[in-house]
């Protein structure tokens, strides 16, 4: 009785690369792992180089003439402008501590997703083109020349990095792959290598103020639509103000909260909170249709684009004459605020030192940026007993908390959201150690990679996170994954649905909104999602 060998049965199973050096294995651009290229329109609108129609699967990427030179000079320029980049190019010893820390590697097993190798893609060019040793010794010094093949590989893998920085905390020299990716993408953008999912929001944001291209009246309509919903649930209709000159505080949140489930529920949470503060304490918070986007896909494009998009926040705050700015729950928005905004578009000397007018707390940690995170703001209100909360309205929620990469590894924002959560819900379970706080896993769709066409890489990248969620779901029956990032809310929803059905995703302020008792409200029967509250079923 003879049995066929599996290798003859499954001819396709040949994932083992030929025993070749990684430099000799060109990137095989696979559907499901890459995002579609950007069309010409958005690039033209914001004046980015080489707008054209192209497809990564084509052989010809329609690169501009002399593109090699553009990249090399661009690199040279950035080596002088960014010490981080220069040092990260020079001192990696390839110890491999980061190798198994990347969620894309853990999920996909593609060795070029090891952070060290992703950086080496660029480092090999640096050595081969810009260092004497590399120019003379070539491969022996770990250098290689910039060819079209190499360029394609860089493009492919630099759009498979979500800039989550998890690898960087394990690096003995603090090499931050996110910074390398940012500069790598900046270089690619010099010759028009982009992805549509980033370029389009960038252009939209530049024009209309938000990524989705929502025009001012639609923005207002949408929020009012939420207010109607709230009225149905609470019997009270919040009345937000827009572009109001002389308001106390300007509120900026990612447009994802306004236009995509389940962020919309978080947005309703904000509206409820602001209404409560207005009624109880007379606090005047205004929304802007001009600075209607907290997120900043410029961060995923180039430093310059980031600055161009970010400038709106301070400009609008100045125009409206507010005291300070309040920022919604968003990941990379906060990364930009925390690490770039004040440096790029500051100093914000036209704003006041942020002080909570209700509690009198001075937000010392935001004394220069003058922008306060809404979770900090709410945590302070709760700490000072200024909110009338009823936890039992979240009795159907058994939550865990996903530390979004940017607030976690970009800010060190760990305890504030947990404090808020513990005050608005009864049941909270942490995911296992090593998957939370500074070691948190990415949702798989950060840094502009939450497109539809690259779903497979997102699912693979999301697996480590989902696996930890599954653990608490199985063990503690956790049914809600809370987070403070709009991209998370969008990405995790599909990701969790695939890996851990039965778990939903929400923002922290959705839960705050659920628990907050508005003065004069009628008895509530459903939560913000319209789901019947526990104990109200028979009515």
């Amino acid at each position, binding site marked *: 009785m003879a049995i066929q060998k599996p290798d003859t049965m499954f001819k396709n199973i040949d994932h083992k690369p030929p025993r070749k050096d990684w430099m000799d294995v060109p990137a095989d651009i696979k559907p499901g792992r890459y995002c579609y290229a950007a069309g010409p329109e958005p690039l033209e609108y914001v004046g980015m180089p080489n707008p054209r129609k192209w497809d990564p699967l084509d052989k010809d990427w329609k690169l501009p003439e002399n593109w090699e030179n553009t990249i090399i000079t661009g690199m040279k320029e950035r080596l002088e*402008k960014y010490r981080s980049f220069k040092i990260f190019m020079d001192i990696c010893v*390839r*110890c491999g501590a980061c190798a198994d820390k990347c969620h894309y590697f853990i999920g996909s097993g593609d060795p070029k997703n090891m952070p060290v190798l992703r950086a080496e893609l660029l480092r090999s060019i640096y050595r081969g083109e810009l260092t004497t040793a590399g120019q003379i010794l070539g491969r022996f010094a770990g250098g290689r020349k910039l060819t079209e093949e190499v360029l394609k590989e860089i493009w492919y893998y630099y759009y498979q990095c979500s800039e989550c920085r998890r690898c960087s905390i394990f*690096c003995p020299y603090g090499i931050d792959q996110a910074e390398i990716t940012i500069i790598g993408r900046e270089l690619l953008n010099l010759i028009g290598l982009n992805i549509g999912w980033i370029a389009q929001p960038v252009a939209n944001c530049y024009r209309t103020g938000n990524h989705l291209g929502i025009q001012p*009246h639609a923005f207002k309509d949408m929020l009012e639509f939420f207010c109607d919903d709230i009225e149905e649930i609470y019997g009270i209709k919040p009345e937000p103000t827009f572009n109001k000159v002389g308001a106390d505080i300007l509120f900026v949140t990612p447009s994802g909260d306004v236009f995509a489930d389940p962020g919309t529920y978080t947005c309703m949470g904000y509206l409820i909170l602001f209404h409560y503060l207005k009624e109880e304490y007379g606090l005047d918070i205004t929304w802007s249709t001009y600075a209607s986007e907290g997120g900043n896909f410029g961060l995923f494009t180039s430093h310059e684009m980031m600055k161009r998009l970010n400038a*709106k926040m301070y400009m609008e705050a100045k125009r409206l004459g507010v005291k300070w700015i309040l920022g919604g729950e968003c990941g990379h928005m906060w990364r930009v605020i925390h690490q770039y905004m004040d*440096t790029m578009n500051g100093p914000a000397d036209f704003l006041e030192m942020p002080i909570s007018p209700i509690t009198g707390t001075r937000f010392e940690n935001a004394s220069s940026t003058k922008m306060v995170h809404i979770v900090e703001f709410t945590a302070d209100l709760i700490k000072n007993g200024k909110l009338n909360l009823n936890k039992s309205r979240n009795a159907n929620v058994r939550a865990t908390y996903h530390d979004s990469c940017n607030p976690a590894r970009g800010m*060190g924002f760990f305890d504030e959201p947990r404090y808020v959560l513990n005050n608005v819900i009864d049941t909270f379970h942490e995911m296992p150690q090593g998957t939370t706080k500074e070691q948190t896993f990415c949702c798989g769709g950060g840094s502009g990679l939450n497109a539809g066409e690259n779903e497979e890489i997102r699912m693979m990248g999301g697996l480590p996170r989902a696996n930890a969620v599954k653990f608490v779901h199985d063990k503690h029956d956790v049914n809600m994954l809370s987070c403070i990032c709009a991209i998370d809310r969008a990405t995790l929803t599909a990701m969790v649905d695939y890996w851990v059905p039965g778990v939903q995703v929400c923002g922290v302020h959705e839960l705050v909104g659920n628990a907050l008792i508005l003065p004069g409200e009628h008895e509530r029967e459903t939560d913000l999602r319209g789901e019947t509250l526990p104990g109200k079923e028979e009515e």
Partner: protein
Amino acid sequence: MKAIYSLFLVFALILLAMIGAGTLGMEYLFGVIIPYLAVLAFVVGFMLKVIGWGKSAVPFRITSTCGQAKSFPWIKENKLENPSSTWGVIGRMFFEVFLFRSLFRNTKVEIHDGQRIAYSSSKWLWLFAILFHYTFLVIVLRHMRFFTEPVPYPFVLLDRLDGMLQIGAPVLYISSLIILAALFYLLLRRLLIPSMRYISLPSDYFPLFLIIGVVITGILMRYFLKTDIMAIKELSMGLVTFRPVTPEGIGVIFFIHLFLVSVLLFYFPISKLMHMGGVFLSPTRNMTGNTRMVRHVNPWNYPVKVHTYDAYEDEFREKMVEAGLPVVKPLEEKSENAENKE
């Protein structure tokens, strides 16, 4: 393959020193000129490299935040993992530089396949890395006995401590054993773990083989192929007092040892070994994480083209007015202007 190339290169260097200092009798070249040049290249090259890094700007303050940031007084700040003060940064740098904190972070107990408790192998990386670096330091300091006269007591003491086991004569140095073990661990790790082999370059193997060569020639010289130590001291003292001599009776093994060390010094500033200086300059670790609190200035910050509110309102004024949103310029004015323009 990459490893074999590097190994051959080290062998070639050894052969070069053997032929040069041995057969051809170019002791002055190998004992004086090359070492001088090597020290010069090392010190100058190292400093130039660091200055080169220094010339690059630090436009943003981006630190890795591995702990709770400074927040409200009632939230416990992690002053070392996410420092907001200079002292915190000093502490963090101390742990990074002297104790390899980040590598140690890898050490984690995990529940493996249900119940078995397992340690990740990375703990070994930390352990052997730290053993290697410290023994290397000890060995360098120990060699100061050849470069000082009289030998200051700290070096004498270090020598005695290293030979504490009092095994054999000359006394066996503990550091000889540890550094060999550590080097072979680091080498085998690269050779045997497929992912490590994949990411390793010749420039990873070469310094390893080179240092192994230095260590082995040193050990051979001390324990097996004896050579006249007093003559070596005369040579080394001649070097450091700028009165170079090449005394009689120094074995070739010494020149091989010295030549490999010289090559290491030459190679140092142009290689990854510069992590020695780079670790101090790594912007993610040597800055405070208080960017929201204290403004960081970008020396090359330049104005960019932005979409102003006025331009925005101009485009959407009609719709804004229609939706009841406040506008700066009334609608009529705009249309008038528009008409005027036409």
